[in-house]
């Protein structure tokens, strides 16, 4: 155990430890070098590991991912950064047609970890608050994970970098400043959700930035004698249905929460799966709480767009009151 660190620092330490441990790890992207990234996630890494291991690239996301493929083929373990969620789209072709499918076509593993700060609630201008996780979760061949806490951020990133398969690692940027003690020896396997808060009334399934909101909702609810169980998925693909079902078997009710628009969002998969697998157990329809079905709004309105404690509580209440 170390002292409490922010999630930003936890990721920085995790990258540092990966660079130290494995000389094949390379970090690159826009402004990750001298600047240390626009969120300072790579702060000090270039200085410590040199310009060969940690380097700035020209401004071109498709090539950032494309060279990661080539570097992985040459035996490296690339950890490219995409500066913001909204700037991953130019790299979509490389991710979907190559990163995800290259092993299937060649037999060669690509141990690439693509780091992407994602989500809203930071008062930003357009394209800086997107939640594109469903696009990647729907893409076979990728693993998609997102931590909700500093400790998980550290540990899950270690696992992602070590994994022989490509991982899209979404960082909930609005939670970069959450603080927690981390344990550098801990590992979080990909594909394993965690019960973030035990409860018995309704299972609230969240991930990344919405976990802390779900926990707040659980706290508020407890004052009204309502018991929410909060599941932090951590891994979207693969999805840990065992943990989800264990919870639903207890609560018989579920609500899924994410920032992305609800329509065809990742919550659709979770809701469809729970509705299917827990058909005889459920006492209420699975609720979905998420972003409105519009492009991400101007910052002044983002709190109205995003799921909040109230909307989670409403959905939980509806589940409890159902029937």
């Amino acid at each position: 155990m170390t002292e409490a660190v922010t999630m930003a620092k936890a990721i920085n330490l995790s990258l540092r430890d990966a660079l130290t441990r494995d000389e094949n790890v390379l970090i690159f992207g826009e402004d990750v070098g001298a600047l240390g990234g626009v969120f300072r996630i790579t702060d000090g890494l270039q200085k410590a590991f040199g310009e060969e291991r940690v380097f700035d690239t020209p401004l071109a996301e498709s090539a950032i991912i494309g060279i990661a493929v080539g570097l992985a083929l040459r035996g490296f373990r690339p950890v490219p950064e995409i500066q913001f969620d909204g700037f991953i789209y130019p790299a979509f072709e490389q991710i979907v047609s190559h990163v995800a499918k290259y092993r299937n076509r060649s037999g060669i593993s690509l141990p690439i970890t693509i780091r992407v700060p994602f989500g809203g609630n930071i008062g930003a201008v357009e394209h800086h608050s997107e939640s594109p996780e469903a696009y990647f979760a729907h893409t076979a061949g990728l693993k998609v994970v997102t931590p909700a806490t500093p400790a998980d951020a550290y540990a899950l990133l270690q696992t992602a970098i070590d994994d022989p398969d490509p991982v899209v690692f979404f960082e909930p940027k609005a939670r970069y400043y959450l603080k927690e003690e981390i344990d550098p020896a801990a590992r979080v396997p990909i594909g394993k959700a965690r019960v973030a808060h035990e409860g018995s009334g309704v299972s609230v399934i969240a991930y990344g930035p919405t976990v802390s909101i779900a926990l707040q909702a659980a706290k508020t609810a407890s004052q009204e004698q309502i018991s929410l169980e909060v599941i932090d998925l951590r891994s979207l693909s693969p999805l840990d249905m065992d943990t989800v079902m264990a919870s639903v078997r207890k609560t018989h009710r579920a609500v899924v929460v994410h920032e992305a628009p609800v329509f065809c969002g990742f919550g659709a998969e979770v809701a469809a799966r729970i509705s299917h697998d827990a058909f005889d157990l459920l006492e209420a329809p699975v609720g979905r709480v998420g972003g409105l079905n519009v492009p991400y709004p101007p910052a002044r309105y983002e709190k109205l767009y995003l799921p909040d404690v109230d909307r989670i509580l409403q959905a939980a209440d509806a589940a409890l009151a159902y029937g």
Partner: protein
Amino acid sequence: MAEVVRVVAADDPVRPLFSPTGELTPEARSRLGLDAAALRDLYRNMVLIRRADQEALNLQRQGELGLWGQYLGQEAIHVGAITALRTEDWVFPSYREFGMAMVRGVDPADMLTLFRGLSHGPWDPNKYHFAPLAIPVATQVPHAVGFAMGCRLRHSDEVVLSTFGDGATSEGDWHEAMNFAGVFKSPVVFLCQNNHWAISVPLSKQTAGSIVDRAKGYGFPGIRIDGNDVLGVYAAVRAAATRARQGEGPYLIEAVTYRMGAHTSSDDPTRYRLDSDLEPWGLRDPITRYQVWLKAQGVIDDGLIAAMAAEAESAAQAMRARLTALPAPPPGEAIFGRVYANPPASFVQEREEFEASLEDS
């Protein structure tokens, strides 16, 4: 620069205006056809937009704006380029072209609502012939080319100004758009604001080549010019636009300047560059240089200069006052109002439910 001379088509009307190092020649300067009022207007606009830039930064520091991206040092490009166009010519900016929009007549307070988090696009592009800001780097360049292709298909003589940074030239969209412009001989003037930085990445790490040299590979000419000379920018854009208007196709202008401020208010340039890096560029400040020249020409005097500064000051105050007084649009309208022209029933219902939920709470 000697290379550039050679890659140019014989009919290139821009090249003869500039020395091999990209400076407007004295002869060309004297033949620009701008009267004293027009020359003064260039100065006035640079002063106005610089003061607005400073005020926007102040507003950001005071928490009135979420973000600000200064264009300090790039005023000659903003003013020279827009002045060289006709008002019907469309401009497709990136995100740093606030000054250009001001010269086009967009109300600066309205514009700032974007950085205040109230709107993603606060002006009517059809009214100002000024496209919305494009935040994903270089993605607006194909829009400019498509628009220009459309102008040609309509047999109109409008031209399009496509402006972008040095960093933008590394993106695939930039390349695809340049190539389309060449193939379709589109009436578009590409204006690269080479301010030497893409956030923390210097030009030397952005490309091993040179931006202006790329034009030839797309089948049209290009020139590198001094981007801190408002008359030079004016002359180059004017001549390239005229050429495009006459059906001669695209032209690439690389205007060399320097980003004197931070990338944006979120940036900390001390992490990647020295204050002393700015010094030579401070000496080439576009407003100071032009002022000296105007005075030497007898076109302005200290009285006029002071009057313009005062005008800029009160415009900045008016901008601030108007901005901070502007009401936030109602949430239903701001969030749902412009998504679809023909909204699906489910969308209308979602909006109604949303609006009802606001009334409840």
